[in-house]
């Protein structure tokens, strides 16, 4: 870790709000002092708040942050809500290709695994078979909204769809038409009316795009 040799070497002076800053620039509020907390794009070093990306420093809802226009590449962190396509469904797991993290599109897909134990809560499931058969909860090529519950192993992140608002968002029926949610457990094909089993995502108000 680099050591700060002398505090005086950091850029001093004018308040930072609205200015273009680069990594290592010290952020100062209107009085010329270092704010105590920083938002995205900042980091504390000793008593100073430094910018960590190149962008415009802004005072956003009481915290100093640095915003940049342009593509950013998110990575899954524990607690993130992700969207992914189901790549493979096994007996008690499903592999998911994550393409969207916290409403931000990813540049590369990340791999996630959904275990059947993290699909339905035991006491909520009316049918005990749904607890052990992944096939009844998701199907390949479904778009699923999941939560990252762990960083997992070298191959995949750990995901969960236990909550009501998590689960299958879009899917195609075996007849090839789109599926529409009918309840927490079922979706209906809009072409043929066939009812299929899924762990359905019942959209909450957070998820504005649906």
């Amino acid at each position, binding site marked *: 870790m680099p*050591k700060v*040799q002398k505090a005086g070497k950091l850029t001093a002076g004018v308040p930072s709000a609205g200015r273009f800053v680069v990594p*290592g620039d010290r952020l100062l509020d209107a009085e010329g002092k270092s704010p105590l907390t920083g938002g995205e794009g900042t980091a504390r*070093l000793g008593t100073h708040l430094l910018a960590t990306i190149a962008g415009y420093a802004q005072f956003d809802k009481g915290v100093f942050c640095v915003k940049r226009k342009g593509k950013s590449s998110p990575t899954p962190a524990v607690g993130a809500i992700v969207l992914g396509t189901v790549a493979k469904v096994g007996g008690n797991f499903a592999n998911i290709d994550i393409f969207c993290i916290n409403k931000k599109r990813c540049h590369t897909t990340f791999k996630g695994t959904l275990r059947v134990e993290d699909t339905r809560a035991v006491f909520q499931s009316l049918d005990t078979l749904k607890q052990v058969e992944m096939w009844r909860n998701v199907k390949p090529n479904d778009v699923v909204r999941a939560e990252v519950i762990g960083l997992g192993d070298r191959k995949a992140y750990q995901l969960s769809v236990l909550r009501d608002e998590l689960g299958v968002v879009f899917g195609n029926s075996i007849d090839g038409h789109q599926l529409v949610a009918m309840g927490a457990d079922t979706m209906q094909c809009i072409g043929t009316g066939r009812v299929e089993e899924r762990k359905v995502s019942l959209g909450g108000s957070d998820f504005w795009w649906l």
Partner: protein
Amino acid sequence: MSKPLVIAGKRKDGRKPQEYRAPSCAVGVTENAQGSSYVESLSTKVTCSVYGPKQTVDDPAEACDVKVNFTVATFAEAAYKRRHAQQPTSEDRNKAASLEEAFGYAVLCEKYPKSRIELNFLVLQRGVDDYAASVLAASLALMDAGIEMHDIVTAATASFTANGETLLDPTSRETRRAVATLTTTCLPNLGSILSVNQSGTSTSETTEEGIKLCCKTCTALRDVVATTLREAAEKNG
């Protein structure tokens, strides 16, 4: 005896001994990469593309890995030095390792757990300061990609002559005739030196003076890099 490198306070190209020529930089040169840059210094042209953070193939760690691919084009050097692109020299491998270490410190790796960030360098024309130019290119590309860093990493090169002069930003002719050549990489705002590489022999006082001079240049180069980014940001609206 051959002509001295500094005559009447001026070098062959008219610069003073401690005058450096700021490199010209551009960002956003590669479309597919998350961030990219192009740096053209006195004798070196190098482009850097950053891919990531992406999923790591190694065992997951709490901090990301910085991986460097350092490629030198076959046409990058003089004809007598030309070689196959598929055979990286040990010198290039050392440079790649140094760059990995330097940017492993500079990037806030803890913010990207279980990921890797790939820096791909392509040296189009290789000069004396290819390492220093690569460091600048990587800093610009990482900032273009929006990857969080402690500070801008900059590097400068200096040569020591037999007459005891220190020449900043030397040409290849000056390094061939010099006693030693020194490259220093630092984080200017944080006041820390990331690496010092010297080839050749000199006294410790000369080296120390050289390091201080390089650090001052690094601080000035930081402003050059910051200006490039600001102009690019303003142009993009």
